[in-house]
């Protein structure tokens, strides 16, 4: 009785704070609201999750996009609770569930370090793991330690299906602990962290196609589902072929869509029906959003770490100018060393004049020096909005890391175009 009242108070206090915070223009209300509710009642998340079918989406890159795609898939079955703003800590999960009390289905994007906590509270039907690579090392989170913690968390949920990318050795190492797995060959563009075997540290052998293996016995599991890039399709091992027609660019988004469709299938959504709806997902939060501003047409892209940048650089339109924005706040990781693992040298093959690349952001000079050494001609202007003035009229591809992206997207929205 007392517990129920506390829960009610916590939930409504949380919602009220969330609404207030939104009205006051303090950005995303979800986190603040969820934080209040969790502080008032630590059991709130467990109770809000009761009787729902919940999918958690985690991994280093693409979890926001994958969660949006999965929410679109599950909407073919009914209303879906979803932490769509990317508030991926336990408080964000709680706020999403509180905001959609009638949704039987939920998609919760979860930070990879918080999977154990959230899974412990919501007992998910499905956990989606797309990739694991280095991110925010300054918190001491070596990628192997993150994978080990995930494996530990999954061991506690023998009834949970883990939909995992068979092409990412670190994901395989984490997901092998799970009792029930569906392996998806979703592709992997980054090998920088897994050239050494996740289990024993010896070199991994790349064998035929996307296969890989190690002498210690860790090998790529045989996938039940695979992305076929040639004709943009998801195929299963019994010959089913699902067309992936996406609005989102890039091979890695084909992988994200594949994981979303397979996770949806586990929860009962027919992939052939659900795939049709994926083309309607055109931006994710503000990612991939197009903004007209003065003489410029901007496209906003987020890339947070070497793997994310390696996936994003090939997407950049050759005739657009570039605004690259880097911060190093706590949420980004304070250490900017990772810029040296981004293959910026690729940009030297672009056509264009010296002024068409601008390095910006609070750590513009860290980026600028990296570009200097990579032979990428550029100008350095700390303020990204001021930096636009340096660029010729026309298309501008904006690539920014986490807080740089959020700050710039907000400024562009409030400034009005």
């Amino acid at each position, binding site marked *: 009785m007392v517990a129920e009242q506390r829960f009610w108070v916590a939930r409504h206090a949380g919602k009220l704070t969330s609404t207030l915070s939104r009205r006051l223009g303090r950005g995303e209300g979800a986190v603040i609201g969820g934080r209040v509710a969790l502080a008032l009642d630590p059991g709130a998340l467990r109770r809000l999750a009761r009787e729902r079918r919940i999918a958690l989406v985690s991994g280093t890159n693409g979890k926001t996009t994958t969660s949006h795609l999965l929410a679109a898939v599950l909407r073919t079955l009914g209303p879906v609770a979803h932490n769509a703003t990317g508030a991926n800590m336990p408080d964000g999960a709680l706020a999403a569930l509180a905001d959609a009390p009638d949704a039987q289905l939920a998609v919760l994007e979860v930070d990879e370090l918080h999977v154990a906590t959230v899974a412990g509270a919501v007992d998910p039907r499905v956990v989606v793991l797309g990739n694991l690579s280095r991110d925010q090392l300054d918190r001491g989170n070596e990628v192997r330690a993150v994978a080990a913690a995930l494996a530990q968390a999954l061991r506690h949920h023998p009834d949970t299906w883990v939909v995992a990318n068979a092409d990412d050795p670190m994901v395989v190492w984490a997901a092998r602990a799970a009792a029930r797995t569906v392996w998806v060959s979703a592709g992997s563009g980054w090998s920088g962290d897994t050239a050494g075997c996740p289990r024993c*540290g010896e070199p991994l052998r790349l064998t035929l196609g996307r296969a890989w293996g190690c002498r210690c016995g860790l090998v790529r599991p045989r996938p039940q589902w695979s992305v076929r890039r040639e004709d943009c399709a998801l195929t299963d091992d019994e010959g089913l072929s699902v067309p992936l027609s996406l609005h989102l660019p890039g091979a890695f988004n084909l992988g994200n869509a594949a994981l979303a469709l397979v996770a949806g299938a586990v929860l009962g959504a027919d992939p052939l029906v659900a795939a049709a709806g994926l083309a309607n997902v055109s931006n994710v939060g503000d990612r991939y959003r197009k903004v007209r501003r003065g003489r410029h047409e901007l496209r906003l892209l987020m890339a947070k770490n070497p793997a994310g940048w390696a996936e994003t650089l090939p997407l950049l339109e050759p005739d657009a100018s570039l605004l690259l924005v880097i911060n190093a706040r706590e949420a980004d990781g304070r250490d900017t060393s990772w810029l040296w693992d981004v293959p910026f040298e690729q940009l030297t093959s672009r056509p264009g004049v010296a002024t068409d690349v601008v390095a910006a952001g609070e750590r513009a000079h860290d980026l600028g020096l990296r570009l200097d050494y990579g032979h990428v001609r550029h100008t350095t202007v700390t303020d990204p909005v001021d930096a636009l003035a340096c660029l010729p009229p026309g298309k501008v591809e904006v690539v920014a890391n986490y807080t740089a992206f959020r700050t710039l997207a907000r400024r562009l929205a409030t400034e009005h175009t």
Partner: protein
Amino acid sequence: MSAPTAADLAIAVLLPDVLGTYSDAGNAVVLAERARRRGVSTQLLTVTLADAPPHGADVYVLGGGEDAALPAAARWLLRHRMRDALAEARAVLAVCAGFQLLGSTITDLAGRVVQGLEVLDADTAPGRERAVGEVVASATVATIGELTGFENHRGHTTLGPAVQPLAVPTRGTGNGTQQHGRPSEGALSGAIVATYLHGPVLARNPSLADHLLALATGLDQPPLDLPDQEPLRRAYLETSPHARGRRWRPIGRNRSRRRG
């Protein structure tokens, strides 16, 4: 010694697959580019766990890695007798785990001991907590000056009495130990420069890059114009307590014990 001919400077990056976690391979890019701009051409060699090493490279660069990767790296270095190659190199830069591996022993949290290459008289054992954050340190060689970098390590390294530290930290942890009564960061021993600083350290500290290039080529290293370098250095030095006036001062009674 005559000026090196084209592609005369071979720079080998050792084990970036396991000692590449903190982007230290960028140090080799910095060395090669600074040499190139001064008319010295270079060859960059990448040597992974699956390769056999090129003995006789002029410069070797080792970076930091995850704790779990350290034994595999140590086995590779010992198996390929890299002790001789490193001892004969014109210049060696070893960062973080790379620094630890050049020492005699590395003890992990469970008390297991990994044998290092014994190129440096140094032993590493876990500290009480992980040292993570910005470091500012005054080099023990005047021409190198102030160093900045980002450290991220648990190991504390004790230098043998004859080993000169690379620098004295004024902010951050560095080696986590004292050398002759002062906190120490890294080590300098002949052609070997060892440090806990990432960044990569040579991008952040061009004077240290040029110190290594001078060792490697025997040539003076005239300044280079990289427009982002000065504002970047200023930013890192200004955010340090050093710049706010809390300058580290040598303690008088320890001066007499310093090596000449």
